[in-house]
């Protein structure tokens, strides 16, 4: 059976970066690459949930972090799995400097423009990692 790509956003709740990462992951796993990519709760790795650990250990993993603490990447690596790719939400801002999310969880139109850019970037990363598998 071919491996899937597990895409894990951080659990950021203090700034809009966390929500942008989460929404980009939802867009990826529900709209752009529903067959190839999926996600799970990051907190399940924090409690050493066996099912979540097996999921990340047996598949390809991309993390997307909202800040330099890199919680998503570090949580995966704390289970002994090296991530295959790690991105930061700030990358989406570099290409769209004028866009400012309206709120922390309610991003508004400018925030969702950043989400769309980031989900495209994620889908390219998924394709790239899956090509390497073949």
């Amino acid at each position, binding site marked *: 059976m071919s491996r899937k790509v597990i895409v*894990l*956003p*951080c*659990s*950021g*709740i*203090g700034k809009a970066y*966390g929500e942008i990462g*989460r*929404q980009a*992951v*939802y867009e990826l796993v*529900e709209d752009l690459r529903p067959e190839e990519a999926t*996600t*799970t*709760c*990051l*907190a*399940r*790795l*924090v*409690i050493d*949930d066996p099912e979540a650990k097996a999921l990340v250990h047996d598949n390809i993993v991309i993390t997307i972090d909202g800040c330099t*603490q*890199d*919680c*998503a990447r*570090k*949580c995966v690596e*704390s289970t002994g799995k090296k991530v295959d790719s790690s991105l930061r939400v700030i990358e989406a801002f570099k290409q769209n400097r004028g866009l400012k999310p309206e709120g*922390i*969880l309610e991003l508004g139109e400018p925030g969702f423009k950043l989400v769309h850019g980031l989900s495209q970037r994620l889908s390219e990363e998924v394709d790239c990692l899956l090509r390497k598998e073949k």
Partner: protein
Amino acid sequence: MLELIKAIKVGVIPCNGEEICEGTLTRFASRKVLDKLRPDSTVTICLPLFIAGEKGERNFSKTFPTITVDGCNKRCSQISTERLSSPPRFSIVVSDVLKEHGIAPPESRRILASKDQAAVDLIADEIARKVDEILKNG
């Protein structure tokens, strides 16, 4: 100084459950408490910082009395806080509270519908009540 902060602030720690609809409710309800209901008496932390952060983050629930807000019965926030910081004062499980009140969980984890505001309000009010209880009883 730390003791003064400890006396006036309560930590709210949502699981954030990215995979499930109830996880989305933990975020929206916690933010409502932090931003609107009890902005002067609550603080939060991203749960994975208990692993990714420094000693300061791991001491979060030693510094503040905490309320964990979990989306499901896996209770990731409660268990992580207990194991990696200090036991929370109260633990709320969204799926249990919704069931108790006969409210259906959201249909999407991505965007909440207007009908889901009742669930956000219910959970946020429950958190705010626990905040008041902690502040009252110390």
